[in-house]
Structure formats: C-alpha cells, structure tokens
C-alpha cells in the first residue's frame, strides 16, 4: 500500500538496469519499499542490480525478462510482474535508449527501433500496468520523460520525438485514470550526467541520476503531476518552447 506521503511498499521498475530507475528504487527501499520487481533485457545487469538491492536482507527482489521493442514481450512482462508481486503500488517507467542520432537518422530500421524502444514499448507497458493498478484500486505511475521531448532538437530528434510521444501519452493516461485511485507523475529531467550520456557534451542545467531520483520521491509525496529536474527548466522551457527557430537552432547543448 501507499502511505500518506506517497511511499510505496512494492515497486515495478521498467528498465530494470536504468541508472535513474535504480537510484529511485534505492531511495524507495530506504523509505518503505520491501518488494522490487526489475524488468529489462540485460539479464546479467538485472541479476547484479537485484543482488545489490537484496544485500541488506530486507528487500525481496524479482527479475522479469522484457524486450521493449516486442509488444508481446511487453504484455507478458507486465503479467509476469504482477504475478510475482500482486501488490505493486508504483510502476516506474525508466526505459530508454539514446541511440546514435547520426547513424540512425537515415536508417529506417534503426529509426523504427528508436521509436519502439522509447515510445511504442513504454506505451504498451504503461497500458498494461495502468489496467492492473486501476483494477487494484490504488497506485502510482512515474514516467521518466525528458526535456528533449518538450521541444525536439535537430541534434537528437529520434530520441526527442519518441520522448515527446511518451510525454503526450502519459499526459493522456493521467487524465484517463482520474478518480480511480491511480495517479500519473511525469518527470522531465534535463541533461543527466551518467552512464547513458557518457562521452556526450554536457548541456547547460545538467543534473544527476540521484537528483532526479530525489525529485521523483518528492513528486510522489506532494502529488505533483509534472516535475522538471532541475526545477528551473520549467521556466526556461516556458520561453524556449516559443523561441524563434533561428534562435533555437543556435542554442548550445
């Protein structure tokens, strides 16, 4: 069950080896959470993360196979997750792949795969998870979106457009579950310094996985529907969203 401060006792992490996702789960475990389900593709990585979480002996960790680019795998993973942990309170959507824009953008298969990994698969998973939580009568869904999807840029438009789709999907999902006891939180980090962005040029107002995780727990506590990390990005993008294309094109990052 969730407590009055939005702290879950059982969490499903979609993208079970995600650095941000695991930072969130670590904080949840410190707070109240005693059951964790990690779903992902990298079995070895999942096993390592599971072992680390279970090390203190207070947490039960399950792992579930998930190939986000395969809709059948998405459906099966949700079903399996709720079978091993029927009382999941919180579903964290942390799947995502940055890809390689330069090589992917003229390649139809690579382009499709980027959209599947960042949007189609996550949307399918969220549809399944939302159905379960609505039936259970209570729950939260935390979707890691990105500022890259708020206004899509030339430099990463495959990732950005997929995140834009996911962000829009999550906004609609949030409306659809009103009054059911389920709530959706959208979190839009800026450039996150970490494994996923290693070797890339850091954008202004960068953040860290741990800062994103802290903001996610705060969103669960206050019920905030949309969270920006760092917070200033809300106001920066209020302006940037409407900046003339000529200016937008020249911005760094």
């Amino acid at each position, binding site marked *: 069950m*969730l*407590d*009055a*401060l939005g702290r879950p006792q059982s969490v499903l992490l979609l993208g079970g080896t995600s650095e941000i996702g695991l930072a969130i789960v670590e904080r949840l475990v410190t707070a109240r959470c005693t059951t964790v389900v990690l779903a992902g593709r990298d079995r070895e990585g999942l096993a390592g993360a599971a072992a680390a979480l279970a090390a203190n002996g207070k947490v039960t960790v399950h792992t579930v196979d998930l190939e986000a680019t395969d809709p059948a795998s998405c459906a099966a993973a949700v079903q399996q997750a709720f079978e091993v942990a029927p009382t999941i309170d919180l579903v964290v959507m942390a799947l995502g792949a940055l890809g390689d824009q330069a090589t992917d953008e003229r390649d139809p298969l690579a382009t499709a795969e980027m959209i599947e990994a960042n949007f189609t698969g996550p949307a399918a998973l969220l549809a399944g998870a939302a159905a379960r939580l609505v039936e*259970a*009568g*209570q729950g939260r869904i935390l979707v890691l979106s990105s500022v890259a999807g708020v206004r899509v840029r030339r430099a990463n438009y495959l990732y950005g457009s997929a995140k834009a789709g996911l962000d829009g999907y999550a906004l609609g999902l949030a409306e659809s579950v009103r009054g059911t*006891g389920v709530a959706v939180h959208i979190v839009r980090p800026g450039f996150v310094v970490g494994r996923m962005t290693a070797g890339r040029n850091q954008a202004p107002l960068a953040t860290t996985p741990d800062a994103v995780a802290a903001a996610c727990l705060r969103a669960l506590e206050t019920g905030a529907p949309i969270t920006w990390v760092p917070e200033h990005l809300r106001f920066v993008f209020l302006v940037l969203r409407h900046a003339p294309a000529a200016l937008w094109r020249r911005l760094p990052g």
Partner: protein
Amino acid sequence: MSTIGRELLSGWGHTAPSAATVARPTDVAELVSLLDGGSGRGVIPRGLGRSYGDAAQLAGGTVVELGALSGAPRLDQASGRAVLPGGVSLHRVLREVVPRGWFVPVTPGTRQVTVGGAVAADVHGKNHHRDGAFGRHVTRLELATPVGLRSTGPDDDPPLFWATHGGMGLTGVVVSAEVQLLPVESAWMLVDTERAEHLDDLMAAMEEGDDRYRYSVAWVDCQARGRHLGRGVLTRGDHAPAAAVPRRRRGPLTVRAGEGLRLPVGAPSGLLNPLTVGAFNELWFRRAPKRETGRPQPYPAFFHPLDAVADWSRLYGPRGFMQYQFVVPPDRGDVVRQAVSELSARRLASFLAVLKRFGPADDGPLSFPIPGWTLALDLPVGPPGLGELLDHLDELVAGAGGRVYLAKDARLRPELLPVMYPRLAELDLVRRRVDPKGVLRSDLARRLHLGGPDGTPC
C-alpha cells in the same frame, strides 16, 4: 441490496485515496451475506470516515457503509443502559439522551463518529485519566462476522469482545453496542481554564491537578519556541449541576443548536499555512484567560469545537494532512518535550496540538491508550523532510514503550507495529476464529501487515 459502483475513498486527512465497491446493505441479513467474502478481495466497514488515515478503505475490495444500522438508540431511563445501533453517530445519541439526563460515557473530539467506529477505534476523550476508553463502558456487542452473528460481552467470549475494541473493524461489523451512560443534571459544563507559558509548567499543572476533574485537556502551541516552548492552555471541568447553569425556559438539559460555539477559525476562507497558523495560535493563546474558574459552557463547545466548522479538514489544501498521535508512559514526558521541540524548530505548522494524560489502559490488545502522556497534532503534507522526522519520532516513541494511534495513522513503518502493540497475536487468534477465510481487511491492515503481509490473519 443497493450496491453502488466504485467510489474513491479516503480518510479525514484526504491522503492515499483508493477505489472500492461501496455496498450499503439495507438490513443485517444483507450485511451478513456481504461478509461471506465471495469476491475474494476483502470487505471492511466504514462509518462516518473520521479516521484520519486508511482504516476505513480497501483498494479494490468492498467497503460496507452502515446506513442500515442507524435505528433509534434504545435507552432504559432507570439504569442508563442504552442499546446503540452501530451506524448511529454520537451526535444523534447525544441529541436523544442528553434531554433525558444522560450523557455518553466517552466522546472523542467530534460527535461525527458512529458507535461502530467508536468501538473499532476504542476512542478516548478528555476523561480518559478517570474513565478509560469507550470500551470500558460497553456491556455487550452484537457483531456481524464472516462466521455469522455473534453476541459478546466482557464475561462472554472476552477475547472477541476486547479484540473488537480497537480492532479497527477487523473482527466484524458492530451491529449494536449496549453502553452504560453517565447521568447528568444539565447540558452544561463548568470549566476552569489556565494558561501556562512553557510546556514544563503545563505538564506540571496537569500532573498536579487532573485528578480533581473528570475532564482535562491542554492545547499546545507548537509554533512557540525558546522560553515559550510548548506554551499552552489547559481546560478542565465537569458536568454542571442543574443549579449552576444559566436559567433557561426549556430547562437545564437543553442547549440551542450552535450555542456557545466560538469558531476556532475566524474565516475559513484561506488555506492553513505556517503564517496563518502562527497568527491563530498567538491570538488563541492571548485570548485565553490567564486563570478562570467555573465558567458555564454548553457541552458542544467544550467537547466538539471543530464540529462547528463543516469540513474543516479541507482547509489544509488538496495535498491533505496527517494527524500524528502517540502515547508514552508517565515517566517519559521527555519524549513529548522532544517532539514539541523538534516540530517547533522545524516550523512544521500544526494548527491543533492536543496534550492529555491517560489513565489505566483497558483490555483491548489493539486499544491505543496506555497510562501516560498523549500528544496529537495536525501536520499538512508538503514540508520536505516531514516523513523522515515522523519516522524518527516513531523510533523515540517505540523506544520509550509508547505507540501511535491506528485511527490516526497513515504512515507508520510496519516493522514498528509489533513493537508498539506487542499483543497483536491475540487479535490474530480472534480473527482466525471469526474470519477463517480472511475476508475482513483494510488498506490500513495491508499497509501495516496486521496479520500477514496482505492484511489477513496469518
């Protein structure tokens, strides 16, 4: 049977809502058939929803409202024994029995609780130091359990009787309770008030003088710091004899609706926040007399001042609020001091902080009151670090041999529950007997693993 569709339910603090099928059985037979647990997703009764947390909700299950159990109280005028239907509010009970010279033996800070809820939470009032909790005055309970109707009393299946007092609805639905009422000559109270400039003075005054009064409670200013830390107003009193009340055309046993109610909030238009609460606390402290004795006050103003403000719980805003109430043994007043000091240092707005001394405990394994000091405060959801601070206070309370009140709780760590309530196994034993299929459960039971991790007896 009128089964309404899904509804979103929460406690009085409006936190952690969940959706359930709400059933409103029209008679006891329907109620009993609902408890057979056909859906497999559990059932919990719900009275007037005044528990602050998640005691009267059940995500995905069935929540039974008690409208069918709301017939008139039956009072034996000579003895003061009254049979009170489980779904009737104490408001209605008082309205019927006070004009006939009787009073409920225990009333919490609101009249808007059902008799069933009063039993399930084993509510206490300002007279706990003298009269104990609600259950002490109950002579018989008629329960609807998953194994059928059961009648129980202090000498008739005492384990079931006492597990039900404080059992948070997990042992069955209270169809009716026979209660010994208190004779009164008037609907008025004679109230003594005194101000204390520091928590230590306040606690000393309570230790010294509470025994002279049937009712005693102190209101603590959790915003004051330094040499005014925990300053407060102590009000104590008893029922007024007929001769002592203001002359009335309709006699001493009546009060006009709303009479004597001084609204604790002047204009409940804005949200309560640290600024307004600070201002309110200052005003409230200053307007209390330094010392006043024998002031006549109609009973609603003395017992239920907040009932005058409809839906005051909404004043805390959409995020809702928690009420934190704990009790620690008599020699552990230091925990009260530390709690007040940490809360005031962090400037966590608490509009209501109530301090009281409890007397001897009753027999319910989950009944909250034990002898000692109890502090209750409202904490709006929002300030960063509030969760961690309360977790820290829980540790202090548990370490001192105290506990938190389940009717208020919305956030306790489940591992602390058996430390605070060491007799949990007795509740489990009773639940296995009257609810072998584990039908009765609630979000609270599931969150705190009352019984097993799924909130059913293990």
